[in-house]
């Protein structure tokens, strides 16, 4: 597990991907923070900055998940991993760890200016921390979906486009639900809407059902990925 995690870490940070992702996110955060908070001299806009960051996270997640399994399948290195004396579960969990740890690392970095600002004003901590937690949970679910899509194809481009498509769909699902006349379908779309599940966090509310929902989505797609990787043995 540790060896695989180290290998994943190297593959992200030996290539520009890791630096570009973290750097770009912090840059975008800085830009929003400067435009929304520093120029208006008001810490009350900080939660909105984090809400805007969610969209950017959704755009960046396809890039951090696209190579997870696609690259292994393309280079046939999965044949090595699956014939070493380690379980499929270990391989899959190690693949999930690093992409899942990039959003929290970035968000932790982004909290530094907020903490500094708290010495001079009173930021709305419940909303800020709620938004950060919501982003982390939403991000973890999206990372799981992205890695699952990556396990379906040997093309990194297709994996990235597929995850990107799902991200867009999930961001638009609320508007789709409101325009559908069939009540059952509208309710179903509303139920699976990530955005409406995320909303309580943005309001500073620790919504247990939303936490369970995001954690369940994460677990289901982790499980599906393990089954997909193992299915090679049964094809």
């Amino acid at each position, binding site marked *: 597990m540790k060896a695989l995690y180290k290998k994943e870490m190297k593959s992200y940070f*030996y290539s520009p991907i890791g630096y570009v992702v973290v750097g770009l996110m912090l840059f975008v955060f800085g830009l929003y923070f400067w435009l929304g908070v520093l120029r208006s001299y008001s810490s009350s806009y900080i939660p909105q900055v984090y809400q805007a960051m969610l969209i950017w996270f959704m755009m960046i997640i396809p890039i951090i998940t696209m190579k997870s399994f696609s690259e292994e399948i393309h*280079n*046939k290195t999965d*044949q*090595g991993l699956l*014939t*070493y*004396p380690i*379980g499929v579960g270990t391989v899959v969990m190690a693949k999930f760890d690093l992409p899942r740890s990039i959003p929290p690392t970035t968000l932790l970095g982004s909290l530094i200016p907020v903490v500094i600002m708290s010495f001079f004003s009173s930021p709305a901590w419940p909303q800020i921390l709620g938004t950060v937690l919501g982003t982390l949970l939403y991000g973890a679910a999206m990372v799981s979906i992205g890695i699952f899509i990556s396990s379906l194809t040997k093309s990194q481009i297709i994996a990235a486009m597929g995850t990107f498509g799902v991200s867009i769909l999930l961001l638009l699902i609320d508007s789709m639900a409101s325009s559908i006349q069939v009540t059952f379908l509208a309710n179903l779309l509303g139920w699976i809407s990530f955005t409406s599940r995320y909303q309580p966090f943005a309001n500073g509310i620790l919504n247990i059902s939303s936490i369970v929902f995001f954690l369940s989505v994460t677990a289901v797609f982790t499980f599906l990925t393990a089954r997909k990787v193992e299915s090679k043995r049964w094809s």
Partner: protein
Amino acid sequence: MIEVKDVSKRYGENVALSDINFSVGENTVVGFLGPNGAGKSTTMNIITGYISASGGSVNVGGYDTLDEPVKAKKLIGYMPEVPPLYQDMTVDEYLNFVYELKKVTLPKKKHLNEICAVTKTAEVRGRLIGHLSKGYRQRVGFAQALVGNPPVLILDEPTSGLDPKQIKEMRGLIKELGKNHTVILSSHILPEVQAVCDRIIIINKGSIVADGTPFELENGSLGAHTITVRIDGETAEVGKALKALNGVKSVRAAGEKEPGVYEYEVSQESGADVRRAVFSTAAAHGWPILAMSNGAMSLEDVFIKLTSASYAKSKELPQNAGEGGDEE
């Protein structure tokens, strides 16, 4: 050490392996021979647990690869046809990665140094795998299979991409490893299999069509074979005397090769060796033998014969006839 029992593999309608059975003991080098698509790599992938069989079972060192995959895999070092190498790692990083992944308990530095020395990869340990030549990548692929010193080595075309000198070295290394490892290797190069392997299994269209030592395959396993003898003597009498020998199926005069000296092709019955009897008969009649050669089939001939469509068809006929007889 390895027991493959009634293993079959189907991809939809396509049958890749059809109920194959064989077992391999300790310290043996077994060569898999077969044309492309015969099922060699599929068999290797099933033994290593990369893919599952549609039916049957594989046991490695007492562990069923399906019930106890991790324990079985611990005993296997596998080098697939395309070595599973990470281009962005150096050779040293890669071998350390494999060492940790396999949870090897041997002293790390010493063990990896030994592997690099035997696979001759020590000089490229600091280089990125993506920058290595095909030959070096192949050797790094072989090195990763040796990490942990597993008792079973499964090598899918291990000399592919190597130059003649490297091929010779690799063959020597495999032969050396075969003294205290169970090695299964596949190859298209018949002299290689002949030079390295104690036993050869020929696979064709998903079935095992021959299994034996190189000597057994070359001599007599495919029915009668022929010896060629050049005798100085009266043709009709020589032919008659040779025909009368036990174990001789037929004699054919192949023409006058020297003045008054004829060559005869003596077809023997399965399992018979009439060379000594030919010598004694010729000596008793006072006919000098000027040349005699064993007409055993080369491994190449055996391979071509066993994997040809007409042979596969001819093998089916007696079976069908037998089934018909049973019904009667």
